[in-house]
């Protein structure tokens, strides 16, 4: 059964829409009341600031905290505009809204709905503030040691940077990595012990032992009460999300009517909105790098393939003809096509389906038995080893390239190394 049964009469029921909106509101962090939504449909100004704040919470990459609350409304509004723009929000009216919260609630309602239609926003918001009950480990590298946003400008040195400073920094980095590794190893040992010593305690048989969080709760009952309260709060929000999902159809029908009340916009002008300087992080330099690599590769391939083609033709002339011959050749072609197709899919798809994302609860079992949805450490180790090999090869290749470029630089511009280039 592919879809869930949706009650066709649901839309007709009078209370369905407020219920749906109420569920939506409960599922979002500090969601505005259904009344705000209703006012926004009529573009009432008093609904504006609540919607700016909600959009800010949804779009902000930072986790919720006191820091967020203290940001002024104008700043929040500006950041919301910028974030929506970068995601490709189609309507220009948003960019033109005043940032003081004096008007624009209908446009903001449309923006919120646009986000809700594109992705599972309430689920993602609950997942952000999830209470991890177990000891968790993420397998994929999505959040691994990625820098926290663009590197903060450390403008200590204005003058030329000494290469020794760079080398010192790299040494420091290596040292910190080693520290991390040894601390991690110790933590794993301790975790493993705690899991071992508490086996047999857990009411959930599939888990079998306590996690650090759970043991901490027994050690510190006040913290335990806090944990319990947070957990129950999360349960309420999860229930709200489920209720929202069951009832959301009527919301979309309503949003279509809201959109209908807006005047259609003129096609987008050629100039781009200039409320923020364009940060060229995703800039051309990196694409240039890839172009160069591919060109080198193309050259290499052209040469090798030509050579082999010539050799092959010469050899094939000498062999016999016949149906088995051409059948065998066709089989070869098909195999190669299939293999190369699989290779292409590796990068066409945005994610390798074999990889599981997100954190997983660690469970110790002597026999290592796992259900089909669960991951096994042994398999992950294998995957990581092959990733490691792949990355090492890439790194070596890049280091070689760097050395080449450096040599080229030194050769082409002998004065550059010690003297600042003219005109600075």
């Amino acid at each position, binding site marked *: 059964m592919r879809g*869930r049964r949706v009650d066709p009469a649901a839309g007709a029921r009078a209370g369905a829409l407020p219920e749906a909106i109420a569920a939506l509101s409960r599922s979002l962090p500090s969601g505005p009341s259904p009344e705000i939504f209703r006012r926004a449909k009529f573009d009432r100004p008093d609904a504006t600031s609540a919607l700016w704040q909600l959009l800010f919470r949804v779009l902000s*990459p930072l986790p919720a905290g006191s820091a967020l609350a203290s940001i002024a409304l104008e700043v929040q509004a500006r950041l919301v505009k910028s974030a929506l*723009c*970068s*995601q490709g929000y*189609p*309507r220009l009216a948003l960019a033109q809204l005043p940032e003081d919260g004096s008007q624009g609630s209908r446009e903001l309602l449309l923006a919120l709905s646009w986000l809700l239609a594109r*992705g599972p926003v309430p*689920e*993602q918001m609950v997942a952000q503030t999830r209470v991890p009950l177990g000891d968790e480990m993420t397998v994929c590298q*999505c959040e691994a040691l*990625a820098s*926290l946003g663009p590197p*903060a*400008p450390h403008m200590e040195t204005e003058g030329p940077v000494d290469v020794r400073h760079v080398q010192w*920094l790299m040494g420091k*980095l290596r040292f910190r990595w080693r520290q991390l590794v040894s601390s991690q190893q110790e*933590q*794993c*040992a*301790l975790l493993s012990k705690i899991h071992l*010593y508490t086996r047999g*305690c857990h009411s959930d048989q599939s888990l079998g032992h*306590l996690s650090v969080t759970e*043991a901490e709760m027994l050690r510190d009952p006040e913290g*335990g009460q806090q944990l319990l309260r947070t*957990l129950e709060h999360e*349960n309420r929000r999860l229930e709200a999300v489920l209720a929202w*999902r069951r009832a959301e159809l009527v919301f*979309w029908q309503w949003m*279509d009517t809201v959109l209908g009340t807006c005047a*259609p*916009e*003129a096609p*987008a002008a050629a100039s*781009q909105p200039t409320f923020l300087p364009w940060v060229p992080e995703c800039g051309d330099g990196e*694409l240039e*790098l890839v172009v*160069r690599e*591919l060109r080198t590769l*193309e050259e290499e391939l052209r040469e090798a393939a030509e050579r082999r083609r010539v050799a092959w033709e010469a050899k094939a002339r000498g062999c016999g003809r016949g149906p088995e011959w051409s059948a065998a050749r066709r089989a*070869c072609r098909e195999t*190669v096509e299939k293999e*190369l197709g699989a290779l292409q899919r590796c990068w066409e798809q945005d994610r390798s389906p074999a990889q*599981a994302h*997100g954190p997983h609860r660690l469970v110790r*079992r002597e026999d290592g*038995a796992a*259900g089909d*949805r*669960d991951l*096994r*450490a042994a398999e992950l*180790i294998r995957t990581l080893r092959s*990733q490691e090999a*792949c*990355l090492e090869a890439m*790194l070596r290749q890049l280091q070689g390239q760097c050395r080449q470029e450096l040599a*080229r630089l030194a050769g082409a511009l002998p004065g550059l190394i010690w003297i600042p280039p*003219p005109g600075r």
Partner: protein
Amino acid sequence: MLPADCSRRLVAELQGALDACAQRQLQLEQSLRICRRLLQAWEPTGTWAWEPPPEPETNEEDPLPACTPSPQDLKDLEFLTQALEKAVRVRRGITKTGERNKAPSLKPGSLVTSPGMTASTPPQSPGQAGGHASDTRPTKGLRQTTVPAKGRPERRLPSVLDRTRVGIGVRAPRPGAGLRNQLMAPSAAPQAPEAFTLKEKGHLLRLPAAFRKAASQNLSLWVQLSSMQTSDSMDAAAAKTQFLQNMQTASGGSQPRLSAAEVEAEARRLRKACSLLRLRVREELSAAPVDWMQEYRCLLTLEGLQAMVGQCLQRLQELRAAVAEQPPLPCPVGRPPRASLSCGGGAEPTWSPQLLVYSSTQELQTLAALKLQVAMLDQQIHLEKVLLEEEMGVQQRSAALRRSG
């Protein structure tokens, strides 16, 4: 080495990497503190820590309360103690007749030491009998007297000890020592934890009922949520798609503008394509075909790879042209973390409860170490790329300078 403005970017990236490491280190150390504290002695508060083991599906013996020996056991042990004390008296009486013997004085407490009691009784073991000829007969006699005295309780003693040991449940190194402590003060409250440690009594802990209920509800809700995502209601999905299209047409643009996120996603795909292609080319070029079929396959593969490289180059050129002509919409100020090479990136589905099962400390440590290693390599690759870009930037700028100057 490099002009200031180039290496400044490298320095900034290095500084960012150092900060990320430091933050991760802090998190680890906090976690380590918590773990160490849990492994030392602490007081589990409340009474729910000492609930008896759950109704046994697995236990075939009757569940005994943790440390209390039953009255019958106490009686048996008392009987045994008396018997052994008598044995000691008898032996002392015999050996007092001028024999110098290093008979260890058996304290009453140590009598109940273990089934190895046989070994810990007076060292007149058969093996030693040969040493003292005058001992032999009394030894034999002693053994004869002791055996019947021990005969009955001995049969029962191991069973008592076994049962009590099961009650304690821990493979403590000296079960007898534990038992001795209990029996020395049989009236002592069995719940007097001298020092609770996870190691010895961790398995007796129980989570409070309110928490158990909330946790199982939480798990079931998450499972419902993740299963609902995979089988979305068709009506709702259709309604959403329709709404998005209406939004697009209402804003007058038929073609959505390329957003910075999309450009980056495409660039990431092409980078991945490049590295995968390069690896494959290496493999093919280093393979040594043995027969004509392998040679043919190799040839076809190389030609196919060549075509794919050409396609990728074309897509790149198109992308660069599109970016140059209509600059993509700006990135937000707080960018999401850079997606690594190993991960695809892209839209994350929400969390679904999954377990990661490991079987030994070593396995866990290997897994964690490999994770760190991959992350480190990712970072190193990123830094090399930054360096390379900067070097190329220098080249371009100096070439431009030469052209203009």
